[in-house]
């Protein structure tokens, strides 16, 4: 029988992988995709728990997460285009203006 723990373990593995990707990749778009991966792993947890607890609330949360993800995609990709226009690159090693 598949328990909620199975889903949550898969979710944990995906989340850790997403974290690793965010920390290691240099391409900003790939980092962005890794963030999407992390968000999806959290969504899986939400839905698994929603099913386990026989409540609708978790799924509504997933709905909002998707909304935020969509907004984030729009704004984040626009940012990347703007940045690329300035620097001819979307390598995050070049995004170090905070040092100054």
């Amino acid at each position, binding site marked *: 029988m598949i328990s909620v723990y199975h889903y949550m373990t898969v979710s944990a593995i995906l989340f850790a992988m997403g*974290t690793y990707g*965010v*920390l*290691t990749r240099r391409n900003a778009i790939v980092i962005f995709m890794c963030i999407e991966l992390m968000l999806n792993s959290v969504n899986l947890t939400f839905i698994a728990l929603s099913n386990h607890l026989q409540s609708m609330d978790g799924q509504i949360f997933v709905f909002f997460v998707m909304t935020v993800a969509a907004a984030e995609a729009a704004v984040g990709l626009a940012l990347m285009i703007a940045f690329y226009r300035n620097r001819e690159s979307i390598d*995050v*090693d070049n*995004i*170090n*203006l*905070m*040092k*100054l």
Partner: protein
Amino acid sequence: MYDKLWLIPFFPLLGCIINGLLGKRFIKNEKVIGAIATGAIFLSFLVSCKYLIQLLGDSVKSHEVVVASWMSVGILQVDWGFLLDPLSALMLMVVCGVGSLIHLYSIGYMHGEEGFYRFFCYMNLFAFSMLMLVLGNNALVMFVGWEGVGLCSYLLIGYYFEKQSAGDAAKKAFVMNRVGDFGFLLGLFIIFWTLGSKHDVWTVNFMEISENAHLLSGDMMLGLGVTTVATLCFFLGATGKSAQLPLYTWLPDAMEGPTPVSALIHAATMVTAGVYMIGRMNVLFAMSPTTMAVVALVGALTAIFAASIGFAQNDIKRVLAYSTVSQLGFMFIAMGVGAFTAGIFHLMTHAFFKACLFLGSGSVIHAMHHALHHAHLNDDPQDMRNMGGLRKKMPVTWATFGISCLAISGLPFFSGFFSKDEILWWAFASTRGSKLVWAIAVIAAFMTAFYMFRALYMTFHGEQRTNAKAKDHVHESPWVITLPLVVLAFLATVGGLIGIPHVLGNMLGHIPNKLEHFLAPVFEHSQRLYEIEAHGTAATEVSLMVMSVLIALAGIGVATVMYMKNPELPGKFTRKFSQLHRWVYNKWFVDEAYDVLFVNSTKKLGTFCWKGFDVKVIDGIVNGTAKVVGALSAVLRHTQTGLFQNYALTMVFGTVVMVAIFILN
């Protein structure tokens, strides 16, 4: 009855505030500024007159008015209190009266100067401080005024602050005054502490100190009487403020200020504060014959020393400055021999004729300056060698200057005659006097007559030595300048009549010595208690009087011979005694000696504190702290890469640790 006494210092303070705050931007008009300042002090003069008249008709001669409590610390209670008695009333008349005239004069003299409002603001502040000094009923209020006049003196000497010499002179005056102020405070502390701890009278009030002074008679300190030590300290304060040996050198330098300042502060009022202070504390001084002898001796030495320097100075204001120092010496002689009344009398007459002399010299300088300026010449307008023959050009100035010269020389029936002879008589005959002091004073009187007439002749008589281009541009000054001169010359002539000595009064038909009678409530007590009196026959007194007149005439005669009849004589004299002339001309090298003895070592100490201690130790600590922090942050800086992934990594670690703690608990 006397509760509006505070109005007297209030008006100048108000004038100072109005001119100081609004003068530069809002009033601007010179006439209005001058009118406000002059009006303020004139109002004080009117109020002073009212209270003087009221006091004359009052049987009680001493009135204290407390306006507000200043501080109440334990058993010490200090008030903002005013004291009106004959002494302070007389001083009020001098300060406000002469002050008003000089303010009026300044409107003309300072015309067109940069910072006109600033000048009048300071002048009114000075008047306020001086009135506080005079009116204070306790030593602390007096000290406020004492410091205030010192501050104003500093500000006004440095009025032309863009001139290096003026700034230096201002600093010199301030520092030397501080030396004296240190003495004043020390004396005050000694009196306060001894009276308080030994006799349980904790007070700084003058009346209470005077009443309880007799308690101190047995107390000893440093092998001397407490009163001797304390009064010597007070006297140190007086030497600083009143330019006596050894602290006199600031006064001649103070001539860097505008001439009305020299007249008001450095001749008529502020420098007499030391004399006034001794008068105010006459009971304490009377208790210590030692101090009084010191005072008399210092006064006498200053009188002759400063007079000798006056011989060879060519700057008209410097001659007057040394003359002031010398005349102040006479006042201290009077205080030292117990002739308090005569000292205050001379203070008053001196205020008249010396203010007149200074204002006269100011008028000449004003005219010379304009003439030289008109001809585009850079000659010194104050140098008497550039003057001569101004009598025809400036008749009013000449006449008033001449009258004042007669007065200061002590010719009969001019004011200086009465006050100076009174001093000489007391020096000769007083129980506290001595023949030595008298002899020195007589020589100083001779010298005074000589150098004053030298100045008069060099300035107004003989050939005009002004550069030919400027010669014809010298004109008499406007009425705002000449009116005060005339009034002061009048006062210098008749001012002495309020203090005609008994012996003369008796001869002329029972004319009483009004001044002595008026001041008696202040001084009689101590004079009687400590048996201070002048005793001698009328014949002695009259013969001394005749002698001093002859001496003055001799001085005038020598000056006439040297500077009128045989103008080449001074040159010959100078060549013959060139070494002596060099010493006198350079003021006996006192400034240089002070530089070697005190100034240089102080400078070295200051330089050490600055370069050795401040720069190395203090700055070292501060900079060291900064360097340590800098080094640490240079290490920490490497964590700030600006790459967001490094921050994210750190954040992940932090989150892991926090979650781990949460789980494990």
